[in-house]
């Protein structure tokens, strides 16, 4: 069963509140029953998968011996995102490996846009061959994924995502499972992305 360890990264939100705790991470609050009003913290996490972009014409069983950092961005494992998405700062580094797809023009001639709550960005659709690795060099075989490649927004426009987003519709998740396997001794959750073996 092939698997990769998913990097769990604390989210820095609310780290700015004084020095009342040695832990810089987590949303501070008071427990309802705590008369001493000791500040408790609610840590936030993100799941990051180190995806690896391979040449489009690579043999399906290719296992790289070296992974250029330009071609292996950590991507947020995001079941809330229908499609995989790369901001321009990332995809420009592996642009040669993207096979672009045309989208039917919109009736109003405007470019296609992706919208998330307050933000909206133009994009192009393309295909890219993605595998996944982890800090121990484990490997999940690559598969071709359709993704949205965001354009660099004009000055003053809302800021696009900084990280790549590994969305729901990627063959990297097909017949696989995202598994929470307890916590490390320093209380970080352990997550795996792995083949689903019944």
């Amino acid at each position, binding site marked *: *069963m*092939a*698997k990769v360890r998913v*990097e769990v*990264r*604390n*989210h*820095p*939100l*609310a*780290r*700015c509140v004084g020095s009342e705790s040695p832990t*810089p*991470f987590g949303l501070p609050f008071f427990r309802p029953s705590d008369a001493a009003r000791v500040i408790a913290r609610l840590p936030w996490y*993100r799941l990051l998968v*180190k995806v690896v972009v391979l040449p489009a014409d690579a043999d399906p069983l290719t*296992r*790289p*011996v*070296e*992974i*250029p*950092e*330009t*071609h*292996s961005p*950590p991507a947020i494992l995001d079941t809330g995102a229908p499609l995989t998405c790369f901001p321009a*700062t*990332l995809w*420009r*580094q592996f642009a040669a490996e993207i096979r672009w797809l045309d989208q039917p023009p919109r009736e109003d001639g405007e470019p296609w846009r992706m919208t998330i709550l307050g933000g909206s960005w133009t994009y192009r659709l393309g295909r890219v061959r993605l595998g996944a*690795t982890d*800090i*121990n*060099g*484990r*490997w*999940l*075989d690559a598969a071709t994924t359709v993704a949205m490649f965001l354009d660099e927004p004009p000055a003053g426009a809302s800021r696009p995502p*900084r*990280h790549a987003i590994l969305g729901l519709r990627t063959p990297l998740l097909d017949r696989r499972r995202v598994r929470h396997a307890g916590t490390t001794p320093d209380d*970080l959750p352990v997550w795996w992305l792995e083949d689903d073996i019944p």
Partner: protein
Amino acid sequence: MTTNGTHPPPPATDAAHGDVFLELNDEGKAALADFAWVGEQYHRGAWAAHAGEYIAVVRRQVVGVGGDPAGLRERAARECGVPPGRVVVSYIDSPNDL
């Protein structure tokens, strides 16, 4: 992951469970080790001052900080005498990024 930033070899039981490991060359291993080090230091809060920026790391040294990841990578590669793909450039989440 040990506290000094090194990584023990994967336990044999992992292979026994069918894990697939890459056979990376030395450069590949070094880049992965730097990537892991960035994550470890992140959890210690070492990059708090750079929230909202990118950091460039080579051989467990921060060799650049800035808002332009491509420029940062090129500069770091030139100054360190390594290929651009050897430089770990990592975005440090800020409290304003969900």
